[in-house]
C-alpha cells in the first residue's frame, strides 16, 4: 500500500532523512517512532506529497507520488501535526468542504460526511463552530477530515498530542476501530507517528524507528516485545547509542 524507496531529504546542510526505505502492506498499522527532530514529520510530509524528497520515490496504493500525484493523493487521508482547521467554519460545513477537495462525488458527499461524523463521535456537534470546540474535539475533527473520503491509507502525525488522558483513550479507541473495522468498513493502512510508546503497544502491529534521519528498527511489535521486553528500553537504547559524535567515539574506544 505504501512503498518508500531510498528517500532522502536535505535542508541546506542538514540531512533530515538519509536513504530511508520501507513498505507497508494493506491493513498494516505501523507505529512510526523516533525522538523529536528524527525526521518523522518530514517523512510524513513527503509521503503525503506536501514536500518533495531530495532523492528517492514513493508509491501510494500503486500510484507514483511524483508522476501521478493526484491519484496518489486521493488515496491518502492525512492528519498533520496541527489539524488543518478553519476556525470560523462549522464542523459539518468543514467536512463537506474537505470531501469536495478530496474528490468525493456530490451525491455521496452527505453520506461521507455523516459517516465521518459518526465514526469520530461528532454527530452531536455538526453545527458547532470549530473555533469554539475543545482541543480534544478539534483533534477529532482533524481525524474526521482525514477519513471523510474513506481513503485506503491514513497518515497521522501525532494524533494524540496535547490531549488529556480521557481524550487520548477516546482517540486511541477510534484509531483501533479504524485499524480493525467491523464488517463492511474499509480496512485502513495506517502510519502513525507518536511519542507515546503505550499507544504503539496498544494499536500498532509493527514499529519503524528512525533516528537522525536513518531507519534503525523495522520489525513486528510482537518480535520486539518478545519475552516481556519493553518498547521503552528499545527506544532508549537505540536513540541513546549515538546522542552525538563524542560519545560515539568514546563508545568505539571502550
Amino acid at each position, binding site marked *: 500500500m505504501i512503498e518508500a524507496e531510498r528517500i532522502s531529504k536535505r535542508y541546506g546542510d542538514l540531512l533530515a532523512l538519509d536513504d530511508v526505505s520501507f513498505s507497508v502492506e494493506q491493513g498494516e498499522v505501523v507505529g512510526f517512532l523516533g525522538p523529536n527532530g528524527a525526521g518523522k514529520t518530514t517523512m510524513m510530509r513527503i509521503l503525503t*506529497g*506536501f514536500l518533495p524528497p531530495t532523492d528517492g520515490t514513493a508509491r501510494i496504493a500503486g500510484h507514483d507520488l511524483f508522476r501521478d500525484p493526484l491519484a496518489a493523493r486521493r488515496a491518502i487521508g492525512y492528519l498533520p501535526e496541527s489539524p488543518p*482547521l478553519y476556525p470560523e467554519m462549522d464542523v459539518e460545513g468543514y467536512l463537506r468542504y474537505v470531501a469536495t477537495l478530496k*474528490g468525493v462525488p456530490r451525491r455521496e458527499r452527505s453520506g461521507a460526511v455523516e459517516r465521518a461524523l459518526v465514526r469520530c463521535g461528532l454527530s452531536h456537534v455538526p453545527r458547532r463552530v470549530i473555533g469554539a470546540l475543545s482541543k480534544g474535539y478539534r483533534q477529532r475533527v482533524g481525524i474526521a477530515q482525514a477519513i471523510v473520503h474513506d481513503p485506503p491509507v491514513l497518515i497521522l502525525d501525532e494524533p494524540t498530542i496535547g490531549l488529556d488522558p480521557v481524550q487520548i483513550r477516546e482517540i486511541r479507541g477510534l484509531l483501533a476501530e479504524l485499524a480493525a473495522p467491523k464488517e463492511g468498513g474499509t480496512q485502513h493502512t495506517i502510519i502513525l507517528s507518536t511519542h507515546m510508546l503505550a499507544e504503539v503497544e496498544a494499536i500498532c502491529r509493527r514499529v519503524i524507528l528512525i533516528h537522525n534521519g536513518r531507519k534503525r528498527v523495522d520489525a513486528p511489535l510482537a518480535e520486539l516485545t518478545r519475552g516481556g521486553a519493553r518498547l521503552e528500553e528499545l527506544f532508549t537504547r537505540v536513540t541513546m547509542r549515538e546522542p552525538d559524535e563524542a560519545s560515539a567515539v568514546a563508545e568505539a574506544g571502550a
Partner: protein
Amino acid sequence: MRRVPAIAGRELRSLFASPVAYAFLTLFAILAGFFFLTQLLVFQEQLIRLQQFQMFEQLREWNLNDQVLQYFFGVMAVILLFIVPGITMGLLAAEKANGTEELLLTSPITIWELVLGKFVAGALFVALLVALVGLYAGLLFLYGDPEPGKTGAGLLALLLVGWAYVAIGLFASSLTRSQAIAFFVSFVLLMVLWMLSFLADLGAADGGSLGGGVLGALGGWTTSALRYLSSADHFEQLVKGLVSTRDVAYFGVIIASFLILTKAVVESVRWR
C-alpha cells in the same frame, strides 16, 4: 477545474463569517456616498453659476457623465487601491498561518484550481463593491439622463481595475504568512502601478525640472512605456467611454501575469 467554485465559495463564506467583509463594504459604501454626493453638489452649483453668467455654450456641453460620473469613478478606483489589499491579504497568507495549506497541497487538486478559486473569491467581492458604485450611478438615471453606454464603460473600467488589483493582491498574499506584510506589499505594488503615469507626465511636462530632467534624458520612449504600464492611464481611457481592446487587454495581461506568478510561488513552497 471542478474544485474552483468550492474553494471560492469557502473563501467568501469565511469572509462574510467575520466582520471584515461587512466593515469593508460599509466603509466603501460610506466613502462612495460621500464622494458621489459632493461631486453632485459641485455639479449643481456650477450649473447654477453657468446659468447666472449665461454661458450657454458651456452649459450645453455639461453633462452628468463627464462632470459627475467620470470623477466619481476615478475617485472610487483610488479607494479600491486601499480596500482591495485588505480583502486579498488573507487569501493565501491565512492558509499558511492556519496550517490549512497542508490540507490544500495534499488534496487531489491542482495548484491552478487553488489559485483560480482564490482569485474568483476576490473578484466576486470586488464585483459586489462595483455593484454598490453602480447603485449610486443608477440613481442618476432616476433624476437625469446620463448615457448608459458611458456609464457602463465606467463601471467596466472599475471592475477591470479592481480585478487587476485582486490578482496583484493575491500574488502578495502568496509570498508570506503574515497578512500585514501581504497588505503592505500589495498596496505598494498597486500604488507604483497607478503612479507610473504621473512619473511619465513629469517627464513629458518639463525637461528642466529635476525629475523631468532625468526622465527627459531617457527620452520619449521611456515616458510612453511608463504610460503604457500604468493602470491609471488605461483606466482613464475606459472611463471616458473609449472602450478599446488595447485597454481591456492591458488588464487581462496584468491579471494573467500575476495569476501565473502566484501559481509559481505556491508551487515553489514545495521545492524549498
